[in-house]
């Protein structure tokens, strides 16, 4: 086969490959291929990759920074809005509280006033009662004394004395009440 090929080559057929050249061609290409494949292309690929990363990394970093800035801005806005809301809430709360306080105070004042008035009334009533009591006794005594003087004898019988006085006083009270109701009318 080789002999045939070489013979053919010597007959100057340009399409028949001379074997030594064929081998050299394979060898030469193999050298180029292996150097590029094993050594040089991995080396350049690494750098191309790094460069791509550097460029894309830069872009990504910028994007991240922008995103962060936007986030922070949003946060601030949220916080501000929240603070405003809170302030408004506090204000209204304070107003409410103030109103409640005033109402309470007012109610308390009212209550105290009524208490004082009631106490005053009670006092007056008590005083009146005591006065009436005292008066009754005094009037009774005076009347008794007077009656005793008039009759000239001491009405020793206490029970009778008391009955007489009470009757007298009741008569007085009825007259006074009739006067009072007449005056009220």
């Amino acid at each position, binding site marked *: 086969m080789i002999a045939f090929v070489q013979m053919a080559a010597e007959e100057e057929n*340009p399409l028949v490959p001379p074997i030594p*050249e*064929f081998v050299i*061609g394979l060898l030469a290409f193999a050298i180029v291929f292996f150097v590029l494949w094993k050594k*040089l292309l991995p*080396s*350049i690929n690494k*750098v191309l990759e790094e460069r791509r990363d550097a460029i894309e990394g830069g872009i990504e970093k910028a994007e991240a920074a922008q995103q962060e800035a936007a986030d922070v801005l949003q946060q601030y806005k949220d916080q501000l809005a929240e603070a405003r809301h809170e302030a408004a809430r506090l204000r209204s709360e304070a107003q409410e509280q103030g109103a409640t306080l005033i109402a309470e105070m007012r109610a308390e004042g009212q209550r105290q006033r009524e208490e004082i008035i009631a106490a005053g009334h009670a006092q007056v009533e008590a005083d009146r009662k005591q006065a009436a009591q005292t008066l009754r006794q005094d009037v009774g005594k005076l009347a008794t004394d007077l009656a005793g003087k008039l009759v000239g004898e001491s009405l020793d019988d206490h029970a009778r004395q008391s009955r007489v006085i009470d009757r007298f006083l009741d008569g007085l009270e009825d007259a006074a009440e009739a006067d009072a109701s007449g005056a009220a009318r």
Partner: protein
Amino acid sequence: MQKELAVSADQMLAFETDCHIFSGCGFEAPGVHSFIFKPLFTVGGIEFNKTMLLALVGTVAIVWFFWAAFARPKLVPGKLQMVGEAGYDFIRRGVVYEGLGKKEGEKYVPLIVSLFFFVWIMNMWAVIPLAQFPVTSVISYPAALALIVYVLYISLTFKRNGFVGGWKNLSGYDKSLGPVLPLIMFLELFQNLLVRPFTHAVRLFANMFAGHTLLLLFTLATWYLLNGFGILYSGVSFIMTVLMVAFELFIQAVQAYVFVLLATNYIQGALSESH
């Protein structure tokens, strides 16, 4: 047979220097013989000729360039690294990711990138002073590269689809085709197993071969016509040489690109689901 070769006297200049028109000397047109070189020296029983030497120097040049550009890469690239990255990125994105997708294609990036720059440099030898011979215009080199792609294509086909699925993939098996299925299968198998690797190698080879022949023709003619009023024709031929150099620079890059584009395409075919 060797007596006809124009390269016998001088390996670097592929013609005789004292032969001009009107001097009783015939024009020695370039041909297949222009692509065959005598061994320059022998190392360990292997006879090195010009194309082998150029292939090895080219290899060193590629490795040197990428070593200088990529061995100690910086995050902020220097000039060389920037150029290397641009080339690398162009093939990686424009060819591999485009054809195979980022996920599937990542594995094949080193192969496709190496193939592109290898082919391109080997093509470029066509216009580099003193060398001026595209290594890829010797069929062995494109064939070796196409063989690598072919082996990868076949092994990937079976690895991805299994034995039966692999054959289905290679033969374009599709039940819905009905009675024409055998014909389709035959054609697909023929194309995928035989035509593809052949055309893959020959497309590159033929482009470089033709380009070099044209360059050689105009260069030789420029020199040959440089006598008497032949100088006028010589001038035209020289302009054509310059234009062809520019055109070849373009073709060298395009052919390298096409070569890896097809390689990617084949890999994609191998990785795709069988019908």
